[in-house]
């Protein structure tokens, strides 16, 4: 499914009148025609919350001189989540509506873990505003013989051991952060107990968007068999495996992740 729209219509030139004040002259009204053809990123965090993506958002914006949008999924970080919002597909539609509201185009959607699954669902919606997706250690699919690790049953130390190539690099947890918080409740609401959708892989076989699948070689939450399954299903995929990297490349090897993203 390909949506065509009149050239220039996604981001029409907007003309505004702005008043600035320069003492002692006083108010000066300036009429500005604003044309925007920048190529923004929409960055989607995983179950660890927006903090797992904030540093990489800074890096990405600085190094690519781009606009980087990092939303907090509703329900994470004490933000409100409507009771009716409890499906990945609905959250995906909310983000496409956000891109419509912001008037963006040529958006690259990047997501890690749960955010990767969400990025795939956004790509599948066929919005003319979304030109590509990057799936980083994405959950969301089921691969025979390679079950996703049962993160709910893990201690913090076990989770770090599964998430990091080198768990000694994992940041110390903030004091008082113990037990399942609202983030985990929101994650469970969106992704269900299996953290996957058995229909996703087949739906991706029809996707005509470029997708870069980037994976940590040492990911023990969703291992590289998931990366190969994603890349094998997608018609326009590139697969990059990052060595000495676990489930959270943006935290463990951010420069290597950025390099893979920007490689020609």
């Amino acid at each position, binding site marked *: 499914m390909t949506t*065509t729209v*009149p*050239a220039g219509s996604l981001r029409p030139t907007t003309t505004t009148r702005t008043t600035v004040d320069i003492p002692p002259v006083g108010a000066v009204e300036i009429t500005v025609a604003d044309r925007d053809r920048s190529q923004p990123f929409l960055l989607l965090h995983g179950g660890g919350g927006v903090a797992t993506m904030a540093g990489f958002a800074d890096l990405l914006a600085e190094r690519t001189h781009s606009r980087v949008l990092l939303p907090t999924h509703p329900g994470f970080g004490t933000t409100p989540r409507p009771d009716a919002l409890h499906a990945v597909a609905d959250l995906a539609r909310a983000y496409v509506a956000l891109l419509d509201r912001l008037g963006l185009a040529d958006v690259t959607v990047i997501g890690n873990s749960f955010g990767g699954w969400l990025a795939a669902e956004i790509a599948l919606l066929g919005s003319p505003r979304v*030109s590509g997706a990057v799936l980083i250690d994405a959950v969301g699919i089921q691969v025979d013989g390679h079950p996703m690790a049962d993160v709910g049953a893990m201690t913090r130390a076990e989770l770090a051991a599964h998430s990091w190539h080198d768990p000694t690099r994992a940041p110390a947890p903030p004091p008082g952060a113990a037990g399942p918080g609202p983030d985990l409740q929101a994650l469970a609401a969106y992704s269900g107990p299996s953290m996957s959708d058995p229909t996703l892989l087949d739906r991706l076989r029809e996707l005509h968007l*470029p*997708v*870069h699948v980037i994976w940590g070689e040492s990911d023990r939450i969703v291992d590289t068999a998931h990366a190969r399954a994603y890349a094998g299903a997608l018609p326009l*995929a590139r697969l990059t495996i990052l060595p000495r990297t676990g489930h959270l490349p943006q935290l463990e090897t951010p420069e290597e992740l950025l390099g893979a993203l920007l490689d*020609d």
Partner: protein
Amino acid sequence: MTTPLTVTRIGHSCHLVGFGATRVLTDPWFTTTATYYPGEPVASTVAALGHVDAVVVSHDHYDHCDLDALVDGGFDLGTPLLGPGTVTPIAAAKGFRDVRTIEAWQSEDVGDLTVTATPGRHGVHEVTFVIQAGGRTVFFGGDSLRIPEQDEIPRRFGAIDLALLPTNGLCIRPMNLQQVVMNAEQAAELAAVLRPALAIPHHYAFTSGRLGDRLITKSDRDPRHFAEAAARLAPGVAVRLVTPGTAVRLP
């Protein structure tokens, strides 16, 4: 007294070529999708084109054969549309009532115009065109590769006033970087063979989007590379880099 010859690039390979009052639209493209961006302003809507006497379409790729945009824009579907056999059935199915199939070295007359398909090659079946009226001759290169069969064009048509040439050397990454469009150097070689009074490059600003440019396509987006190569390889040929919407009048 010669017929005035004018050309206005609409965007990409889409031009309005005027032989006096007779106007030909080439390779229409007026929309965008998630992975096809003109990369330059598109100088006209379909509705603003005004009267068109003929449409020529080199091949059936979306960015050259945006017939849906013509239909949606209220274009007169009685306008003669000329193209290879891969294009004309599509046009007929979309409601064009006067479609003419021409393959290499076949001609069709439309009023004062004579349109001849000339050799082309691309990822899919493609022809180029020589369009003539009132003693003026225009070569339209679509997004073809440079192939030896094109050397026959000047022998058959003599002096060429204007050549519209693709220059981005587009390569398809998933196909082992297979080249499907002539590059600036090859376009300059073709200009040396055709010896037009003026050559205008097109098909260079296009992008597949941020990720698509890395994963799907690779292309040269700098039209100066053609000007530089033509100065070297076709020194007698004037070159003008023309942004969309600029009307060029040939002497």
